[in-house]
């Protein structure tokens, strides 16, 4: 009875509808207007194919980690260890290659396996021990930093023979860098996983109402752990991809991706949906930030504006969506 009861005879007023539209499309409109403004301001450099590819390339790494984070967020959990996991992923891969233990592909695979392990630990601590995800992943993340220092001794790990790694980042197919394909491929797979499999539907149900999901037969613990595992794996992969850019890995190289991923995912939750996390939204979030950074570079303003921009995008994107939904509901 406290909910708004819809009466078919009456249609929502025009203002309620336009607020609803703003709530759904506001974040997307922000991206579109950014593109239009930049095309007008910098018609020579911004609206070009090369710059478009460049923006996508810049989006690739944040996209991979943010897609992973989206899985945890969809299940109603949180992961603050992803930045540390990314750092560790790069260090593990590079160390294995430098020490000539394994080949490049196997090193990458093992680094991702480390991410899976971290995700598994996160998931079990949160579900089996019942520790709040915020605390659990902060704790596990701190341990990961320790492991990272133990492996690398705090120094950057640089490859003697960088070719094998570098070609992953620098290689191109159809004149488009490989990371762009990796990003698009992962986004498509993630979308299919969330929307076209029982697993994905279960994840959304768990995030929506865990108790109702459990009583509907969904194995909530298992689903949450899987969310953490996917998140950890993609975080480690992000670290590896970062290492392929310079054929070296620093102990804190991936840390800054934590905030980038959260900003993108939360911005994305205001895209088309009413505050739910979804892959398409996350991608829009990543690309909006990348376009903004690109604009800052092209306009030649100081790089510290990047931080202002990222913060404002997050607050405005999510804030406008929230206010608009509230207005639409009253």
């Amino acid at each position, binding site marked *: *009875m*406290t*909910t*708004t*009861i*819809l*009466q*078919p005879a*009456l*249609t*929502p*007023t025009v*203002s*309620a509808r336009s607020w609803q539209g703003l709530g759904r499309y506001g974040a997307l409109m922000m991206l579109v207007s950014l593109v239009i403004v930049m095309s007008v301001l910098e018609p020579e450099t911004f609206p070009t194919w090369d710059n478009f590819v460049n923006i996508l390339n810049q989006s690739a790494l944040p996209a991979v980690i943010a897609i992973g984070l989206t899985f945890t967020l969809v299940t109603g959990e949180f992961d603050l260890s992803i930045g540390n996991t990314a750092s560790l992923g790069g260090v593990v891969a590079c160390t294995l290659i430098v020490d000539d233990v394994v080949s490049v592909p196997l090193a990458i695979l093992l680094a991702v396996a480390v991410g899976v392990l971290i995700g598994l630990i996160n998931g079990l601590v949160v579900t089996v021990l019942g520790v709040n995800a915020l605390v659990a992943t902060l704790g596990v993340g701190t341990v990961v930093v320790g492991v990272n220092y133990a492996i690398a001794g705090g120094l950057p790990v640089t490859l003697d023979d960088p070719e094998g790694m570098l070609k992953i980042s620098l290689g191109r197919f159809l004149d488009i860098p490989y990371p762009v394909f990796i990003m698009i491929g992962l986004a498509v797979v993630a979308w299919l996983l969330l*929307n*076209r*499999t*029982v*697993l*994905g*539907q*279960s994840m*959304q*149900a768990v995030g*929506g*109402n865990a*108790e*109702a*999901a*459990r*009583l*509907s*037969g*969904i*194995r909530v613990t*298992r*689903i949450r752990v*899987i969310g953490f595992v996917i998140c950890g794996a993609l975080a480690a992969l992000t670290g590896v991809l970062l290492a392929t850019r310079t054929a070296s890995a620093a102990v804190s190289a991936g840390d800054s991706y934590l905030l980038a991923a959260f900003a993108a995912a939360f911005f994305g939750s205001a895209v088309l949906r*009413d505050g*739910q996390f979804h892959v398409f939204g996350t991608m829009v979030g990543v690309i909006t930030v990348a376009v903004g950074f690109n604009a800052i570079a092209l306009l030649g303003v100081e790089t510290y504006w990047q931080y202002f921009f990222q913060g404002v995008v997050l607050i405005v994107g999510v804030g406008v969506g929230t206010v608009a939904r509230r207005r*639409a*509901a*009253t």
Partner: protein
Amino acid sequence: MVSQVQFDPSVPRTGSPSPDVLPSTVDGPLPLGLSVRMEGISKHFGGVRSLDDVSIALQPGEVLALCGANGAGKSTLLRILAGAEQADSGRILLDGSEVRIDSPRTASELGLSFVHQELNLVPKFTGLQNLAMGKGSQRPLGILDRRGVAKRAAEVGEMLGHRLVLDVAVEQLPVAERWMLSLARGLMNPAQMVALDEPTASFTEGEAERLYRVIGQLTGAGVGIIYISHRLDEVLEVADRISILRNGRVVGTHDASSLDVRSLTHHIVGREVETIERRGAAQPRGASVRLSVRGLARPPRVRHVDFDLYEGEILGIAGLVGSGRTEIARLLVGADAATSGEVVLDGEPLRARSPHDAIGNGVCLVPEERRTQGLILLESVESNLQMAQIGASPNLASVHRPGRSRRTARSLIERFAIRCRSPKSAVHQLSGGNQQKVVIGKYVRTEPKVLVLDEPTVGVDVGARAEIYRMIGDLAAVGTSVLMISSDFDELAICHRVLVVRDGAVVATVDGDSATKSRLTRLCYTHDNEAIA
């Protein structure tokens, strides 16, 4: 038994109305009981008209019931009086003087007390902490007057004829116990008018009797009561007058003595609705045993439960709050783990360690609280309807086909007459009855052998209630075994047999044709064991 009337004029009123809202004719302490009038109240939500020119009047010492289907506007009207919502137009008069109630605080200062349908208790707090959250429980410097609160709580508890549980976190208490606390909280400060929104939704007869006595006490002291309930027999018993709302309008105000359940139902729905049809001894004799339960236990709530459930049978469970009825249901579906006992389904032992196992074996529970346990409120009708199907799926990697899911959703919406704009509508936009149909539909979709329903009609209006009974009847007719728990002993008439549960054990089995309300009530309380084949 109850010796103390709360509204003793010698008790100083905590907090006094600000001067501009005080009726100008009153000098000195206010007399107990105000007349309350709401005139021409209209309210829109996002372009949807919830109330349209509604007027009601309450005299001191009178019980005015508000009746109407879910969504008729009863709760919205109360929320406006409580200051939780502002009307778009219309005015509120207390003893003939217009007042502006702009916040729940103002309402409370005016002596208007509200016990809401939604439990507004803090789950982690103990009963005492919850009761202490109101005004008047603080000493200077904001220090909590624990002793004063405890004393007042004891007085209120005595008046309710109920020992309030004050030292346990509210989340650990059963629903009815929480309701008692909610009610007590509304009475912690002396009130001029008390509004009760669905107070007995999860009460059994005996608990409701206690509430009636409290109402008698209050009205005797001149306090007016606004009463909302879907239980029409109860409304007819308690109310002096009844205002009937339909689609946001008052369609009539009648003396309760001039109405009976049938005519009241007619007014509410605006059409004839079939009343409960007693299924009686027409039980599926000769059918085989579907579910056999022996020695099921999880102390302290469930001590020893034995029963058989036949194919196509509707078996009721009658019990007081705290009798273990909900806990039995939770054990059957593996929501909690039994410490001993065995369950046999179609001749095979059923070991349900989780609802996933149970649903996979065809045993489903429609839980007690649909909003928190049954639905994802912000999700679509369609997503909610597919949830148990998803949960029953053994393979997480299997493909989910939205097209097929939507077709099934549409057919369920049609089959159960779920009223929603489209399968894409968020489920919180539906009325309580339609929400409940979604929860039942979700489980029916998995084609269960045994469907356990815990309080399936709480907060559901008469029209939708009849439809839910029909759903249950139809399911049994095709061989589904139904176990139905209810506090509303009248509705257990739809059962073939009724189990009476007390102190975690089955104490009697009654045939449907003799399962009258008075008999079940007596069996729930008394200890003379009675077993009827």
